[in-house]
Every structure is written in C-alpha cells, then in structure tokens.
C-alpha cells in the first residue's frame, strides 16, 4: 500500500470517527471536537489526493486546505462562544430543549462543569 493510499484511508477513517462522535455525544464541547475531527479527515484526504504520480505534488489542493483551516479555526471560535452562551442560558451544555421551546434555566449543573 502506497503512502498516498494510506493517508487517504486514514482521512476517510477520521471522517467516519468524527461523524460517529458528532451523532452519539451530547456534550457540546465533544460535538465541536467531533466536527474538527471530520474537518481534519477531509483535509487529509484532499492533501493525499494532491500527490498524483511521482514528482512535485499539485499545489492547488494545499491552498484549498490552508483556506479550509482558516475557516475551521474561525468556525470553531464561533461554536465555542455559542456553546458558552447556550450553557449560561439553559444551564446545560447540550442541545436538549423542551418541546415547547421554553427552556428553564435549571439550578443544578448535571454535568458538573465549573464556570
């Protein structure tokens, strides 16, 4: 198995792991981490695909991944800020909201997260 194929498969594996974690974990921090794992998997696949045949790799996918990393950093910053606001407003760092859409801030913090 060539290195390129190994990188590509590893990237696909990261995407799968990240997707799984995004679905099964409730805690927002874990969901944000899962999205970042998916992102890194995508970047790995794209970089691996840049090496076409022997010689110098194609620079365009590298530029794409650099842009993607910048986007991922800013998106993660927004997601973290929003997660803090969700926890402050609802008392819990999860997405669960009562069906009528009026979440009451609960006194206890079941996850034990400190402010």
């Amino acid at each position: 198995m060539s290195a390129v194929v190994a990188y590509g498969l590893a990237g696909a594996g990261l995407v799968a792991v990240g997707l799984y974690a995004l679905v099964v974990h409730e805690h927002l921090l874990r969901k944000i981490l899962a999205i970042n794992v998916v992102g890194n998997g995508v970047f790995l696949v794209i970089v691996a695909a840049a090496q076409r045949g022997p010689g110098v790799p194609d620079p365009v996918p590298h530029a794409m991944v650099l842009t993607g990393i910048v986007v991922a950093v800013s998106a993660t910053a927004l997601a973290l800020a929003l997660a803090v606001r969700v926890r402050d407003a609802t008392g819990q760092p999860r997405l669960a909201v009562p069906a009528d859409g009026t979440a009451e801030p609960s006194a206890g913090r079941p996850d034990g997260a400190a402010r």
Partner: protein
Amino acid sequence: MSGLADLVVLPWVVAVPLAGAVLAFVLRRHASTVGQAVALASAVTGLALAFQVATAGAQRHAVGGWGAPLGIDLYADGLSALMVAMTSIVGLGVSVYGASYFVGTQGAAEHQRAYFWPLWLLLWTALNALFVTADVFNAYVTLELLGLSAVALVALAATPAALTGAMRYLLVGLLGSLLYLLGVGLLYAAAATLDVQQLAAAPLPAGAGAVAIGVITAGLVLKTALFPFHFWLPPAHASAPAPVSAVLSALVVKASFYLLMRFWFYVAPELALAAISQLLGLLGAVAVVWGGLRALTAERLKLVVAYSTVAQIGYLFLVFPLALGQADGFTGWGGAVLLVLAHATAKAAMFLSVGAILKAAAHDGVSGIDGTAQALPVTLFAFALAGVSLIGLPPTGGFVAKWLLLNAALATGQWWWALVLIAGSLLAAAYTFRVLAHAFTRLPGDPPPCRCARGLEWSALSLAVAALVLGFVASEVLELLRVGAPVTGPVLLERVR
C-alpha cells in the same frame, strides 16, 4: 450602444455590501443609517446586474486580471442574475423592516441594533458572492461565510431557544460545508479544475466523478434542509428575530439549492441517473406532505411559517425529475426557478408580517392572534397575499411556477408529481386559512389602536405585492433565465399531445 452594457457591474454586487458591512461595524452608533443606505446601494447594483445580463448576455469578470484556472472568476448568467435580483428585492424589504424592528437605545435592543446591520450586510455579501462565483472552491468559502453570519444573526435573539437553535444550525451547517469541501477536493482530483465552465465543458470520469458529486449532494441537501434533514430548520428559523427569520427562509436555504442546480445541471448532467432524480423528487414530495402537516398542527405561529418553508423546499426538488435529462426540460426548470423567486418574496412577506403581528399579539401561539385583523389590517393583508402565492392561486408568481411544474409533470409523463403539487397546495391553503381564521376572529369591544410602526407593515406588504407582480412579469423572467440555461425547449403553458 455604450452605457450600462460597458460598465463592469459584476464585482460591485459583492464589494458594495462588503464595504457596507465593515462601515456599519465601525460606525456602530450610526449602524442603522449606514445599513439602510448600503442596502439601497446593494439592491440597485444587484438589479443593474440583472438588467445588464438581460440586455447584453452573460457576464464574466476575472478578479485581479488573473483568469481561470489560476485566478477566481466571477460569472453571471440568467440564473445567477435572477438570484442576485431576488436577494436585492427581498434584502431591500428586510432592511426597511429592520430599521423599524430594532428600535430602542438601551441594553439588549441597542446590542441587537448595533450587530444586526454588519451581520446582515455580511450575509448579503456572502449570498451575492455565492451566486456569481465561477469557482466551486470559492463557493465553499462563501457557503461558510453565509453559514457563520446566519448563525450569529439567529443568536442575536439571545433567548435559550434561539441560542440552542443557532448551535444546532451551526453544527449542521459546518458538517454540510465539510462534506461539500470533501466533494470539491475529490472533484478537483478527478477533473483538475475548479472552474464551473471548465468542469461543464468536459465530462467527468464516471467513478471518481460520481463519488465527488454524491458527497457534494449530501452536504448541500443537509444545508438545504430537504426531508429528512430538515430537523434543524424549524427551531432556528422560528426562534430568530423576525427580519432574520425572513432572510433565512427566503434566501439562505436557496443558496445551497442554487449550488445543487449548478452541479447537477451544469457540471455533471451526464451522471444523472433516472433513479437519482426520482429519489430527490421523492424526498421533496415527502417534504411537501410532512412539512404541510406539521405546519397545520404547529402550536406557535412562527413554527407554522417555518414548517411551510420545509414544504416549499420540497417542491423545489421536483426540478430534478422534471427537468434533469429531459428533452425540452425548460418548462420544469423555469417552473422551479420561478418557485424559488415566488417563495422568496412570499415567505419573506409572511415572516415579516408575523413579526409585526407578534409584537401586538397576546402570545406567540396561533390562538394568541385572535382579533389582530382589527388592529393590523395592512399586516394581515400582507400575510393573506403571501399565503395566496404560497398556495399557488392565480395570478401570483406561485401560481405560474406551480402551473409550469404541473405541465412539466404531465408533458414528461410523470403524473405522480402532479398529485404531489395538488396535495401540497391543499395543505398550504389549510395552514394559511387556519392562521387567518384566528386573525379575523372578532374580539368584543372596540378594536385596539394600532401599535405597529408603519415600516413594519408596509415593507411586508411590498414584498407580498412583489410575489403577486412576479406572476405578471413571468415571461420576462423566463426570458432572462434562458441566458446560459442548461436545458432548452419551449415554455409549455398547456399540456401538449
């Protein structure tokens, strides 16, 4: 003829709102004034582009003079021009409304007003950039810009429901964009170009191309909220401030749908199997019925309108079975694009009038608006007019759009889609009249005085009238759509054969 045909309008549809967003952020105290002025300028620029494409044909502009494949080109054909024009008209209405909606000088109101304008103009920038970009990777950047500014706008409401809705919206949006990026990476590996026209010129390799387009479709379907991926849309759209809800439902979901049309009709029509078209159409049909039923049973007024969006998005996906790979597909193509425009104006009008109603209503339940027709006659007229277009009654834009889709279904021998169209119209009528029945319930005593700003009432009515006018200018719109259209054929106004 010199004049407009020689002017370079294309880059300005992106540059004007972007400069305005920066200016509104820096001049925070005057954000509302700056925002309204820039909104007017952006709308004029966008409509000028549509006029230029209609008179002088498709426009292409190499940013910085580099040119594809090295540089990132801007390109506007009839479809792009119509999308930019739609953004201009809805954006102008929402901006007038926003100026009257975010009032107050202290605390949360001041905060909302200061941040609404830069974020909304940034969202406008992202929409225009997405509609005119000729580069599929640049489309990823604009998708992310669109998603991040939309999430921040939802979170402006700062209620627990809005923050949770925004968080879910962000996670789904990021996943959708990452899948799109993965697809673009695979597409580049297969075709060695990112330019839409270069991609369209050569057929994609069957295996690698199919995987790339499949991943792109998955990401975009998630972002367009096609059933069963609609779960994130109602909480986000129903909990945002009213002008934001209007923009999200009218424009933002159309952006990812626009990209789906670009990929399936321009880049890879040769990959379209009948099974894929029928599957996308089937999911759309389920969305029409499911969204309609949920809108009919929803307790809160804004959820009724949000589920109506789920249903209307379903209609749009009928473009795949009705136009993709069909000879004379232009009837279905034109019907779907007209429906995008009709839904944008009507749904924006509906969310704006609901926002005005809720400012006067007892509570946000559907039964809480009893008697509001006495207090807010103009707003209720706007709501009803928008509802008429959503149902698809003549002579509105919604009627012409559904009529074309109906004819396309019969002309291509796919009668089952005609049943979906009729069922969806009945459901739309039911949920619209359910709201109107409550609004026109007379309360005892004198009607309460109108407590609503004129800007709120008349901007909503203007957009509802725009949905109506669309029905009268449909032939001009379809003529513009022919510029660079991927399908040909006559517009079938009645069933042939």
